[in-house]
Each structure stands twice: as C-alpha cells, then as structure tokens.
C-alpha cells in the first residue's frame, strides 16, 4: 500500500524528483571527489612542499565544495517541496473522499479514526518521503560512487569495503531489529500509563469515595514499572548502537592503515591514496548506517499508509444520481415503502419492511427502545444512508433520484447530538440559511427558546461558539441546533430526540412555539419518552427494526402491546 500511495501521489512531481535526484547525484559526486583532492594536496603539495599547488588545489576544493552545497541545497529545496506537496495532495484526497462518504462509511471508520488518518498518518508518510528525498537517496549514490572512487584509488584494498560494509550492516541491523519491537511495546505501555492517569483524573470522586487511592497507586505502579522496563530495554540497545558503529568504523580505519602500510611498503600504493581510501571507506560506512537508520521509519510509515489506503479504497455507499431531479417545490409528503436496511456482513437487518406515510401539517412520531433503529430510519430520508431495500419517497419520487442539494434543501434536521461549529452564534445559524438576516435569526431563536440566553451573551449573535459547541450548555446547544433547522424553513423537519436536554417547561414552551411555524410542514420526531409524543398525529412504534404499531396514542394503548409496555414501564418506573 505504501508503494501504491507513493506511486500515485508522487506522479505529478516526477519532474521535481528527477531534478532533485540529479542534483543529489551532483552533490554526492562532489562530496566524493573531495577526499581525492585532499589526497592530492597531501601527495603533490605537502610532500613536495609546493605551496602554489596547495593553494590551487585548495581553490578547486572550495569550488567543488560550493558545487556540492549548491547541489544539496537545491535538491533539499525540491525534496521539501515535493514531499510537502505530496502530503498536501494526500490530505486533500482523503478529505475529498470522506466528503463523498455517507454516514455509513463515516460510522464504520469512526470520526476520530478518520481524523487521525487525515492528519497524523499522512504526516508519517510525508516525513518518510521527505527523508528519502533529502537523505536516503544519497546512501546508494554514496555507496556506489564511494566504491568506485575507492577502487580507483587502490583496487588492492577494496576488499576491505566488502568486509566492513556487511559487518556494519549486520551489527546495526541486529541492534535495530531488537529495538523496533521495543519501540512498539513502549508506545502501547505509554498509552496504558496515560490511560490510568486519564481514568484517575476523571474518576477522582469515585476513587476518593471508595477510598481506593492505594489501589489506584498500585495499579499505576504496575503500568509505570512495565513502561520503565521496556524503556530501559530499548535504551540499552540504543546505548549499544553508537559505540558499536564507531568501533566498526575505527577498526576499519586501523585495518586500512595496516594493509595500506603493507602495500605502500611494497611500493604498490601512494601515501595520498591511503588517506583518500580511508575517507571513502568512512563515507561509505556512514551512508550504510544512515540507510539502516532510515529503515526504522519504514514499518511505521507503512502502517500509516495502510490506514490511509483503507480510506481511499472505500467506495461511498450513497452515490448521487447522474441527472438528479431538481423540482422547484413539493408538498412534502413523505412515504416509506417496505424499507429495509442492513449493514454489509451483518446477520440481522437494522430495519425491516417499514412502511408508513407522513403528511404535511402532521406530526409523526417514532418511538422504541434504544437500538430499535429509530435514528437509522430518520437518516434514510436525507440519504445519510441509503435503504438497502424498498424506497423512501418524497411526493412519490424516490429520494435517490433527487439532486442531493435539491433534496437537502427540503429538509431541516436536528440531530441527536446537537453539534455546533466553530464560529459565532450567527455563523452557526447561517448554516441553515446562508442569507438569513439578523431579524430572521432572532425570530428563529425566539421560537427555539434561545433568544434569552443569546441576548445575555456578551456579543449577542456574534458571540463565539467553540468547536462542537462546548462553551454552551447541553440544553442551549440543543436549542441553537433547533434554531438552525428552523431558519431553513424546510418542508420536512426531522427531530432526532432533540428535546432531551431541555427541562419540562422549556420543552413545553418550545413545542407550542413550534406549532405555528411547522403548521404546513411534515414533522418527524424521534423520542424515547411517551410524554414527548403523546399528542402526535401518528405514532410509529419500532421494535427490533420493524413496525409493531401505528396509530395515535389512544389507539396504540389498546392495539399495540409493545407501546403499552413502554408506557407502562415509564409509569411503573415512577410508581415503584
């Protein structure tokens, strides 16, 4: 998956990559050429005492150095540009993809997981690309070039490269192999320690009430010790890494001097060549070590790439029609015809064979216990999910045939979890209708019983709303969400358990204020409480995903056992 993502998303930057590769090649060759020049300075300058030569060669050396750094810096420039652009494109692709998802796919991954994939996981892959472009790419070039140059200096010593490189690879590979699982374990145990701390801060009252401080401390102690143990283990391997690598390098130097000395003694080699050879060997070994170190990041990035790939390869289950119907206006007659919904791979359907009609000017309520499928049913109407069986129709037209924007413009939804967006009260209300005037907004707030507290806020409509709406109370959040739906003046209202955070009086006031506004609209209310829906025109009773009762409160009390059971359980809870 890593390869696939890289191939696909780096394609637009092929040109940059070619440029940066050639620049890195130039830079690396230049830096490889340097030892040769240094050797010349020693051989031809210092040994013969030719100062002029030293100056001249020194000048060339500086020129080469300059070429080297210009090459490297330009390469880094393009490398940073390409890898960051890669990250940007990848983020954009994921974001676009998720935008096309239906609630079903979002639910499958979970919003937090999608967020991590869109940010953190991309970051991991992006950094690997960046490091590859700026550092990793130099390793093979240095290795090949270094070997060629070293052999040019003296073929007789080149077998030393063949010995030193594998030794270094084996040693550093061995250490890294032992370290990587440790890192992973360290992460899990760090999470465990943090989890205990998180539980302790959130459960502080319970801990104190049960006098379990000591128990908690010992629980934490275990997690802490486990973390420390693995950290120490990893740290020991890390402590071994540096001296081991240095030792290999130093021993190689000694070997070069010894065997080089023999060859010089035999007159087969010049002293300058010895020095140059030494530099090349060190450069080669450094490149090898860099490459091995980089490899540590590959597994991590590839896990991230897999997670990204999962998102990119998921196809949205709700697809907008090619030529969607764009009707100017409808009456808002909503009909469900033998609707069923089942998750792929699930053994039981969430909804089965549901049929009912909700008429304009009427309130249709849906009741049932948790998990009966109430919210799912509601979500089928704006196509947050698509029914897997049967049809959802508005004025006789299947919702799947509408242009999505056209469909959504007919619907005002107040979700179970009232969610507000970062911005102001006004910007949140304008979500419902971008052109709403202040007057319209105040009007909607008034109906939603939110006028008072918005007026009390320091800046009124322009007061800040934090992400998710966490800076207002649950009840206030719910009322703002209701105002947001009202301002849209839709044909169909969907209230998903939307009055739950309101106290009895506000609830009553709100519902009576809603009445004139929703007089001509189709209103669907999901509720758990009988009291909320007792006066609805029609009540749909759901049980295990199927309709078990349909009628008014009074009718259902006599005809529907499940309904009377629910009513009774709420009464009995009172009376017990």
């Amino acid at each position, binding site marked *: 998956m890593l390869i696939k993502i890289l191939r696909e998303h780096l394609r637009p930057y092929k040109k940059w990559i070619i440029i940066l590769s050639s620049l890195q090649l130039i830079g690396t060759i230049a830096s490889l050429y340097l030892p040769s020049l240094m050797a010349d300075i020693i051989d031809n300058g210092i040994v013969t005492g030719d100062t002029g030569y030293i100056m001249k060669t020194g000048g060339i050396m500086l020129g080469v*150095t300059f070429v080297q750094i210009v090459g490297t810096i330009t390469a880094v420039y393009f490398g940073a540009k390409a890898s960051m652009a890669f990250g940007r494109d990848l983020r954009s692709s994921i974001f676009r993809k998720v*935008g096309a998802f239906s609630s079903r796919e979002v639910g499958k991954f979970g919003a937090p997981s999608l967020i991590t994939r869109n940010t953190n996981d991309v970051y991991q892959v992006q950094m690997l690309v960046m490091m590859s472009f700026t550092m990793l790419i130099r390793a093979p070039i240095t290795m090949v070039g270094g070997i060629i140059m070293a052999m040019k200096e003296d073929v007789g010593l080149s077998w030393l490269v063949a010995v030193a490189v594998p030794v270094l690879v084996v040693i550093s590979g061995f250490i890294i192999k032992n370290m990587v699982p440790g890192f992973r374990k360290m992460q899990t145990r760090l999470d465990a320690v943090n989890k205990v701390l998180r539980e302790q801060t959130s459960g502080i009252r319970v801990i104190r009430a049960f006098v379990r401080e000591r128990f908690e401390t010992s629980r934490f102690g275990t997690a802490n010790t486990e*973390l420390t143990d693995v*950290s120490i283990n990893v740290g020991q391997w890390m402590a071994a890494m540096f001296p081991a690598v240095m030792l290999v390098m130093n021993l190689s130097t*000694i070997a070069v001097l010894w065997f080089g000395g023999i060859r010089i003694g035999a007159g087969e080699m010049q002293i300058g060549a010895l020095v140059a050879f030494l530099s090349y060997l060190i450069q080669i070994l450094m490149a090898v070590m860099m490459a091995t170190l980089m490899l540590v990041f590959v597994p991590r990035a590839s896990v991230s790439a897999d997670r990204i790939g999962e998102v990119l390869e998921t196809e949205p289950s709700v697809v907008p029609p090619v030529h969607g119907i764009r009707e100017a206006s409808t009456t808002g007659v909503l009909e469900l015809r033998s609707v069923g919904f089942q998750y792929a791979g699930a053994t039981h359907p969430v909804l089965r064979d549901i049929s009912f009609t909700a008429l304009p000017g009427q309130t249709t309520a849906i009741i049932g216990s948790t998990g009966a499928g109430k919210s799912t049913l509601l979500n089928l109407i704006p196509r947050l999910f698509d029914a897997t069986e049967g049809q959802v129709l508005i004025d006789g037209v299947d919702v799947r045939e509408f242009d999505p924007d056209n469909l959504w413009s007919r619907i005002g939804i107040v979700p179970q979890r009232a969610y507000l967006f970062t911005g102001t009260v006004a910007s949140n209300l304008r979500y419902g209708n971008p052109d709403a005037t202040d007057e319209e907004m105040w009007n909607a707030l008034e109906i939603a019983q939110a006028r008072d507290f918005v007026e009390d806020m320091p800046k009124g409509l322009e007061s800040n709303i934090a992400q998710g709406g966490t800076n207002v109370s649950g009840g206030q959040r719910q009322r703002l969400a209701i105002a947001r739906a009202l301002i849209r003046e839709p044909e169909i209202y969907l209230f998903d358990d939307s009055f739950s955070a309101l106290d009895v009086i506000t609830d009553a006031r709100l519902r009576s204020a809603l009445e004139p506004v929703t007089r001509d609209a189709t209103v669907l209310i999901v509720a758990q409480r009988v009291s909320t829906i007792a006066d609805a025109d029609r009540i749909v009773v759901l049980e295990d995903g199927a309709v078990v009762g349909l009628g008014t409160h009074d009718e259902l009390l006599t005809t529907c056992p499940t309904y009377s059971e629910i009513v009774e359980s709420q009464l009995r809870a009172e009376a017990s």
Partner: protein
Amino acid sequence: MSTPTTPDGTPAGSKKMKETERIGGGRGPGHGPMGGGMVGQKSMNFGPSARRLVRRLRPQRGKIAVIIVAAIIAVAMSAIGPKVLGHATDIVFSGAVGKMFPAGMTKEQAVAGLRTAGQDKIAEMLSSMDVVPGQGIDFTALRNVLLLLIGLYAAAALLTFLQGYLLNDVVQYTIKDLRSDVEDKLNKLPLRYFDTQPRGELLSRVTNDMDNLSQTLQQTMSQVMTSVLTIVFVMVMMFDISWTLALITLASVPISMFVAAKVMGRSRTHFITQWRSTGVLNSQVEEAFTGHSLIKVFGRQQEVQETFETENEELYEASFMAQFFSSLIMPIMLFIGNLNYVVIAVVGGLRVASGTLSLGDIQAFIQYTRRFTQPVTQVASMVNLLQSGVASAERVFELLDAEEEPPDEHQPQLIENPTGQVSFDDVSFRYEEDRPLIEHVSLAVEPGQTVAIVGPTGAGKTTLVNLVMRFYDLDAGRITLEGVDIAELRRQDLRSEIGMVLQDTWLFQGTVRENIMYGKLDATEEEMLEAARATFVDRFVHSLPDGYDTVVDDEGNNISAGEKQLLTIARAFLANPPLLILDEATSSVDTRTELLVQHAMAALRSDRTSFVIAHRLSTIRDADLILVMEEGQIVEQGTHDELIAAGGSYATLYATQLSGPDVALAPPQVSSRQPAGAGGMPTMGMGRGRSGPAAGSPAEDD
C-alpha cells in the same frame, strides 16, 4: 464536571495545539532535526526549573559519578585516537620516504643531498622526520601503534556503552519516580483543584508534558554531555598539535554559530507557522468529520472543501519553508567545515613543508576539526529541544507544587459501630469567596432514614452531599457523623462508611468482576455474585462475551449506559456501607433498563441512611425527609404529607409538575451518545424555567 463554566473553549483549544505539537514532534526515534517542532512553547523560568530537574537526579548520584568518569575517559580516549592514528601515518610515511634513499646513508647525508639538488623544502621536511634512509616501513612499530589503537578504541567503545547504559537507567528511573510523584499528587490534591482546572489542561500536564519531558531527557542527556566533553577534549588536542591551526579552527566556531542561529531562527518562525497551520487544519478536519452528516444535509460540502483546501495550501507553504530551512543547516555547516579544511591544508601544508609540523600531525588535526564541528552543531540544535523539555518540566513542577489537601488530624476520632446518624449544624460553604452557595444549613438525619433532596440545577444539591463526603472543607459550622465532627475523622475512615453512586458512571479499564470488586477489594466470589444479582448486573453479564471476565472501561462502548449504571450500583452494594449517597439521574437509559436501575437503587437503600438527589416522584414521596433547596438554602424540609399540607413551594411544585398529566412524569433525558461532561444533565425542572447553568457551583451536577 464543569464544562459550561469554561469561557470560550480556550482550554480545549490550547490542548489541541499541544496535541498537534505532539504529532509533529514525533514519538519515536529520530527526533533530532525535528526538534524545532516544539518551539511553540517556551519556558518562562528556565533556570529554576532546570536546576530543579537536575536536583531530581540526586538519588542516583552514585551512578552519575560513574557515568561522568566513564564519559570523560571515553571521550579522552576517542580524542587521543586521531593523534595516535597520525603517528601511525607518520610511520608509514617515513618508511615510504626512507625507501627513496639508499641504505647506509645517514639522514644528514640525505638532507644534504636534497639541498644540493635544490630541493630545500623537502630537505627541511626530511630533517624534522624520523627517517632512516634505506629503511622501509617499520612494521613492528606500526603494528604496536595499531594494536594500541585497537585497545584504545575498544576501551572507548566499552566505556561509551557503559556510560550510555547507566545514563539510560538514571533517566528512566528519574522519569519513573517523577511519574509516581505526579500520580501520588493527584491523590493528594483537593477536589477544588480538579474543579478549577479544565480537565484537558490537567490531563495534558500529566500525560503530554510528562512524555515530552521524558523524551527530552532521553535524547539530550547523553548527547549534550558527550558533545560538551568532546568539544573540550578536541580543543585541548588541537592546541596540543598546533596553536595556529587551533586558533584558525576556533575562529570558524563563531561563524558557524552565527550562521546556525540565523538559519535556525528563520526555520523556527516557519515551524511556528507550520504548527499553527497544522492546528488549524486539524481542528477543521475534526469539525468536518464530526459534523459530517450535518454538513451534508445543510449542503455545505462545497464550502467546507474550499476552506480546507485553503488551509491545506497554507500548511503546505509553511511546512515546505520550515523543512527547507531546517535542512539548510547541515550543508552550510559542511561548507564551513570544508572551508576550514582548505585553510588548514594550506597553512598546515606550509608548516609541514617548513618542517614545523609532521604530516601525521596535520592529518590528525584534520580529523579533529571534523570531530569538532559536529558536536558544536549538535549542541546548537539541542537548545530548542531542551527549552521545550524544561517548559514541560515547569508545568509538571507547577502541578507538584499545587497546594494539597490539609492533612488529617493527628489523633483522629474513630467511630466504632456506625448507624448512619448525620447532622448538619449551621453549615456554610462557598466555592468562590464572593459567591455564597450553601448558607447556614442545619438538619438532622436519623439512622435508616431516606433523605430526598430536590431543587433546580445550581441549588447546591450535589455540593451538599459532597460536603458529607468531605470532598470539600466547610467555611463555617460542622457536620457530624454519630455525633463526631467529620473534620476530626480520618478522611478514609469517613469515606469507608459511605457508599456513593454518581450519575457519572465511572468505570476503570478492567473486567466486570474487578469493577464490582472495586467496592470491596477482598470480597469473595460469592459476595460479588450476590451483589451482582441484587442489582440486576447478573442478568446482562450473561449476554456479554466473557461474562464477568469481559473487559469494560470508561470510554468503551461494549456495555450500555444503563448497564454501566447498574455496575456502579453493584459496586456500592458490595461495599455495604451504613450511609449512602445516590445521585439518581438515570441518563438516557431506555425505560425498561431504567426500571431495573430503580429497583436496584431501592434494594441498595433499604435499611440504610441515604441521601438521594431525587428525580423520581416515588422516591421523593416515600422519603422520610424531603429537603427542598433553592440557591444554597434549604427552603423547606419535612415529609411529603407535611410539605403538601404546609402549602409551600414544594406543594406548588408538586401540583404543577410532579403530578402532571398521565405520563408526563418522567424527567427529560439526555442522549446517551453525549460524551460525559459535555451535556447539561437536567434535574427535575423544579426551578421554573431556570434551566441553564445558573449561579451554580463548578461541581454542581451540570
């Protein structure tokens, strides 16, 4: 939880920033060049915090002494290395030169010969060398030198390892101790501290800051020490070889530093922009994905996508610049290094030619210059990391310095056979000095009585029961248990007598069994099962995958909110305390489960003194004593019949709300999907339209 009092979400925001920093900072290895990622935060008090951090190493000073000695020897040995290596080169070189002259010739003859040939410079050089004409390389001497080198390097490697090994121990144990201290501190802090600190902020200190600190220590300690030592030793060696060359090299240091500072300054500002952009983008993604369905239905997809693209582009610009500038350092340093090399080669070459320096020396010197620039750059790049680490340390220390709960009495009272007799004697308490909350409350509760507390949000109901637990200390008056002032009891003795069931259904990560046993750690399996049966936990446990061994936790969703609530009741049941405190709110449990919860609560209450923050008509009506609270005062108290007869505010409330039409008795509900603490938990709407978080205490049930 007290989230509504949070002004404008700033704590949440700042926490987010922190998280994005963590994303950028990277968790694993290879933090090095990315150290700039943490520049967002800076220490305000670098000196004191750093010193205090060092003081924490004191228990390990034995190891530290060994580490320092090992490091000094190891660095010295590696520093001598090039010099010895240079000597080896000299042997090879003089052997090579020696072979150029016939054997039997004296050195002087060779020099003279060169002079007559006009090769003055070589002659001069030769005269300073240890050359025996005609003799090739002295392999015995070379072997000896190289063997010495092997020994030197091996010993240095071993010592470096030893130093790293011990240092790792020191760092890890220091961190471990610090973590324990932090955890310990959590248990000693007064609840007030938890109320006033936003939870995210506190959590960030105990997790993110601790992690950052430990990473910084791990990464910098060993490197900084080795680097500084290396700089010192290499300088000594360089001066030993040649003052002139050493001074030339030293001159390059300020240049390097200046350039490094410049470039890092630039990349730092770009990094700051990068993290800011990352933060903005992340919260945008978070918002877009969390509000996914709303954005769709309200037709805002296009707009959201556009904003994202803009921010994404900005992040790209910023991170590109940041990465580019931070990668500049290495090549520039390399250039300065090479420049230095050429100067050294020219000057050194002249000196070798003039015979003042041997070829080996110049080679050794060149090696030293290479070893010199690297640690200098390293120290420079570590400054950022250190700064962010110390800033984290400062935040951790702040937590450790926070005022603790006053200690228990030296000679605490003991209660032998508690019956559950509680009385309040003119009790006053306020969270904030200028906001009265509980004012002059007095009441007496006889053993076995059920006390129902009713009143609007913010009336002080939860505070009242928290005072019984001694979660807070009183401002005036006293609360007694069996006639003994609870302030004279040890907190743990007091709390052991009280069982508490909160609406916040906190469970820890562990099995169902472990969570029930939390109420009584040494309970037998039979006792545990009995509690589970009495509280209807047993019923649903059998439908769980691993029965009582199923792992549950506070955040997980494998059991429902109602089931969680039953578990917390079972926990209190097992504890079997003489006194009970129940917060009855049954948040969004479906009605049939709720019935079970009610039964379980009733089972728990029987024969025990209990304080119930009541929402249920049945509980209220059957209570032995009803307290009606308004604005921190008990405005009425008595039995149901008495209060109805009195015709006061309870009677009004009862008439208008409690006995409403057929089914409208149930309290409004909050969705179970709502994360704990995020929603406003309604209590019975007795406050007549006061629904928002009115003049409430931070700890009041929100």
